[in-house]
């Protein structure tokens, strides 16, 4: 093989791998991306039952009901709209009423959100960013969220 041919075969291999990578990414983007929605989005966009989405907001005060076999139901709110969530399993350590939460799953025909995973924050000063943004949109979030969370938390915990 001449130098030129060798270089061409190298470039060919590189382009081949690149094409494979791009193809995989495009396929994966179609199949495996999950959109985040606030409760208001869920109501306004009329998301179809069965579509996998994430929702986030605050766990509504007084809405947590525990059933048998670790079943739990609670409402997620962004201050304007509320979505009922059903989940079965262990909740994260920092899952509490009045605090931020993100759930992933799909709506069922009755409009209840069937979650298969529930994420809460890592510590008391951390609010999932999506939740903070969703709350901001509804005007419940005016200044720097760290301070506000701290204050809100102390208010709500007692």
């Amino acid at each position, binding site marked *: *093989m001449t130098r030129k041919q060798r270089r061409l075969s190298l470039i060919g291999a590189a382009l081949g791998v690149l094409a494979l990578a791009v193809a*995989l990414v495009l396929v994966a983007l179609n199949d495996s991306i999950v959109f*985040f929605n606030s409760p208001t989005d869920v109501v306004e966009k009329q998301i179809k039952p069965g579509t996998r989405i994430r929702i986030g907001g605050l766990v509504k005060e007084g809405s947590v009901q525990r059933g048998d076999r670790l079943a739990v139901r609670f409402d997620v709110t962004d201050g304007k709209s509320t979505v009922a969530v059903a989940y079965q399993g*262990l909740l994260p350590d920092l899952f509490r009423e009045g605090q931020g939460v993100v759930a992933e799953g799909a709506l069922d025909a009755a409009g209840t959100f069937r979650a298969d995973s529930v994420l809460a924050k890592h*510590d008391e000063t951390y609010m999932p960013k999506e939740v903070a943004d969703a709350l901001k949109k509804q005007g419940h979030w005016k200044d720097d969220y760290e301070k506000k969370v701290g204050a809100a938390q102390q208010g709500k915990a007692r």
Partner: protein
Amino acid sequence: MLMIAELGHYALVLALGLALVQAVVPLVGARKNDPALMAVAAPTAVAQFCFIALAFAALTICYVRSDFSVINVFENSHSAKPLVYKISGVWGNHEGSMLLWVLILSLFGALVASFGNNLPARLKANVLAVQSWIAVAFVLFILVTSNPFLRIPEAPFEGRDLNPILQDPGLAVHPPLLYVGYVGLSISFSFAIAALIDGRIDAAWARWVRPWTLLAWMFLTLGIAMGSYWAYYTLGWGGWWFWDPVENASFMPWLAATALLHSALVMEKRNALKIWTILLAILAFSLSLIGTFLVRSGVLTSVHTFASDPSRGFFILLILVLFIGGALTLFAVRAPLLKQGGLFAPISREGALVLNNLFLVAACGAVFFGTLYPLALEALTDKKISVGAPFFNLTFGPLFVPLLIAVPFGPLLAWKRGDLLGVAQRLTGAAAVAAIAVAVIFAMEGGGGPILVPFAIGLALFVMAGAVTELVERTGLLKVPFGTAFARARGLPRSTWGGALAHFGLGITLLGIIGETQWSVERIAELKPGQTISIRRYELTFDRMAMRQGPNYRELAAHFTVRRLGEEIGVMEPGKRTFPSRGSGTTETALMTRGFSQLYLSLGDLNPDGSLAVRLYYKPLVLLIWLGAVVMVIGGALSLSDRRLRVGAPKPAKAKAKPALAPAE
């Protein structure tokens, strides 16, 4: 009271001054070919390290003494915290961790300065100058936006404590390990830039860069493995890798560094792939910087993001643009001037290493895309998406499979022109091992499980058996008398052993990943004292629970007796801790190791009726995931100890010590 904090602050300012000198003077010296000016680099690099170490020590003293008049200590420490967490708390926050970052950066600079005596003077001066540019940028960043030495006018009596989930032995070591890895790549970067400035690069350059990259790679591997194990046992839901952006931030430099290790090999041995190697060195450290940006800027929220302050994000972004943009521009201008190296046929050791690089870089690209696309989309369209495990499994997985198949072939191919058929024949044994494994697993699963599992296990074993094959081939074991083979084995370069061991470790990790993801069993239940839960052949009886008082927490501890086929084999004591100072808590997982597998038990909520929610897993082969990483690191260490690679070591005088019979290295 001594003004320790002020002293630390002052030392850091002095370090900045020294860094500025080191960033400019040697460079001028190298341009003018003035030995006196170039010689400034080494002592300033050492002095810079000493002053940053002083600053770091000062902050540590503030933490140990619980000096809450320092804001940083007040916000992240507590007087009742055990000493080890007071110390690890130094880097358990934004400011302190950035200080650790520059400490390690200057340490590497000082190491090059001290041990680089046989480096060409110009190269050494340029490398240290570039290294110091990075130091200037980051020390300035700390002083301007993230000063850990600020005081509060009226000192509070008690601190706010460290985030409880960070109070763990894993955290004490994970960040330093990872940082040594991240920041260690700065040396390869500085070498690359120095070569571009000088417009000259040769095999000696690669001989210099490879040990540093190897060292950084080893620590990066350990740091990632440690972080993964930490997440596994602290988060309480048994996951060890989440494709979380923060994890990806450390994984991308790892992939690039792995590619760099392999391409530097080609450059050192065959003087080829020069331009590509330089580009990889730049990319690897750029990815480290991007990782630092992602984690430290507050763009992402996670346990790693200690605080978000827009000015910090902006500052790091500026550093990022300046360094990556500058480096790539310099590369674009200067790289075409570098001379082309040796020729090779597509089927050859070089060819195999190019293939390795292509797939590693493509996989790295996929991870990069998946990590940054959601951020870009949100910034541009306000849509929020989550790119999770499914995306990465679908992209990263298929790109890694061909790479893994190729791993055993690479080391067996000859340089320049290889014989694929011959190598395939030599790998028949390894392929047979894999085929038997596929058949056995298939039979065990009874055709029920996912069809890919047996093949994945087969692939892992192929990689492991391939590594063994390489050693068998090199020593001639099975062909020549045992004594001869033993003598040859002793004569093999340590880098050959190291490489084979690292590939073997890769197979081990793969085996663990498949075992854990495919065969893990989960049970969730609510138990009252006296009740039993069973998983596989194990039965766990919930005996009792009790409250305990720790130094700065209260713990609800549950006591379980574990039986296997009716026979008692031990107890497990998971707990839940509450930290009153933070009003939050942690789940303390109980682990019981059985061979390479583990029983994993964590607690959920305590219900009003007295029953306790528990989550129990049986995780087959899970320990292999981290064991494989450790084997890779041992392989790296072995390779690093090879005479021919040792930093600063002259070429071995008696080159004939290499066995003449061993296939060409």
